[in-house]
């Protein structure tokens, strides 16, 4: 595992099955529980995933999203891609062809980076209300 700035890149084990998921999630827990975690899971080594593995991925994503962060998948092996498609999970994750690409994607301006400001359509609503009142 290596860290790239605020983004954590972690290698998913070759056999991501029931036996390995617990240790993997435990290892990742420290990063997930941080503020706005940014995690990239490198799936290039994955040869087998079972339902526990898929569940672990979903759990990590859920926990990350709860903390206003994101979890992205990178370098998906054909095996990982097949299983994620088969279990309808692929569409939930953002996937990238390389870990670097996934890390760079976090540098794009996220909605959280925008300053909170009044929505631009407020004036339109006020005009509409005024029109209703006059009518």
């Amino acid at each position, binding site marked *: 595992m290596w860290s790239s700035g605020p983004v954590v890149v972690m290698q998913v084990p070759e056999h991501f*099955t029931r036996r390995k998921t617990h240790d993997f999630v435990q290892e990742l827990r420290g990063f997930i529980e941080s503020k706005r975690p940014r995690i990239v899971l490198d799936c290039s080594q994955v*040869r*087998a995933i*079972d*339902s526990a593995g898929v569940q672990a991925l979903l759990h990590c994503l859920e926990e990350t999203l709860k903390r206003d962060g994101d979890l992205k998948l990178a370098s998906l092996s*054909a*095996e990982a*891609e*097949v*299983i994620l*498609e*088969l*279990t*309808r999970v692929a569409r939930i994750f953002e996937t990238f062809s390389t870990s670097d690409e996934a890390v760079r994607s976090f540098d794009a301006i996220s909605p959280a980076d925008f300053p909170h400001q009044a929505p631009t359509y407020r004036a339109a609503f006020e005009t509409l209300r005024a029109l209703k009142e006059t009518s």
Partner: protein
Amino acid sequence: MTGAIVIAEVENREKWPSETPGSTSVNGRTQLGCLAGVELLGMSVSARLIQTLAGTKTIADVSVVRDRRLPVFDLTHDPDVVIHATSDVWGVARDQLRDQRHRGLDPVLIIRAGAYTECDLDDLVRFHYRGGEAVTCVCDDQGALDFWVVNPHIASGDDDLRTMLENAEACYRIQGYVNRLDSWWELRRLVIDGLTLRCLFWPQGREVRPGVWMAEGAQLERGARIVAPGFIGRDVTISDQCLITRCTNVENGSHVDYGTVVEDSSVLAGTYIGIGLDLSHSVAHGTHLAHLDHDVMLEITDPMVVRPMRGKHWRVAGISPPWPIGNQRKSRAGNRKPSGNT
């Protein structure tokens, strides 16, 4: 009258799914005799071949020589067809050729089960007679097929039959449909061509509505939907909210469970497909999944996703079950508590 010998053997067998733990590429050529024994659209290529030969009026005798190592599968229900199970396939085939010569059958067709071919047999026999060679080999654009016409009187019975066939000098170019069935792609192509009626590989079932065939005992639960063309085999269960679409065939004794979508795929006999899955561009077989788009063969050990159905369906499919049947029975018996008073 003409004779015919069909050879089903395991020679040149590449790793079959049940022998390959983990994942492998599906790019390699799959074993010849095996895919021919796999039930597709209700009946295997081998069984269809034997049925066609047995049903041809000009063919007086059909002998089948089956490699003993091949799993038992339903080759034929025709009582006139004799099946010889042996470990010396070519030796027994040579004996059968001699036997047919003694019975005055001339010429004799020798076909090694593998490719699916649609051939005008009368035209082939005429071509063979005109050529006057001992052996005529049937070819297509890609080269020789394992299909020969032999003059048993000219062909010396003492020679190695296989060498004699491989040295055939005359070549008959087949005009009809050919599928070599040597890869999973070819298997899917045959299914698609069969369902879209591009060849005579017709589904064995009742066409319940245009393009949708269902065999006896198939159960389609309320809310399940089949988009034509598609085939549902014998004793198949398609659970509620499932969608079977784009030239999919679900073979004998399989079960597609609740809410799963099967698209452009083949579910081979005796396979369970779990709940809420998206199976596309694949061939599923027991614990194995060949994904054709990703070119990968996976072994899925999670029984919630895919697993073999227990029962006779594996035998019918012509594929060895991934579990040792004998050992499992033994272990069950071993665990059983002794009955009676102790």
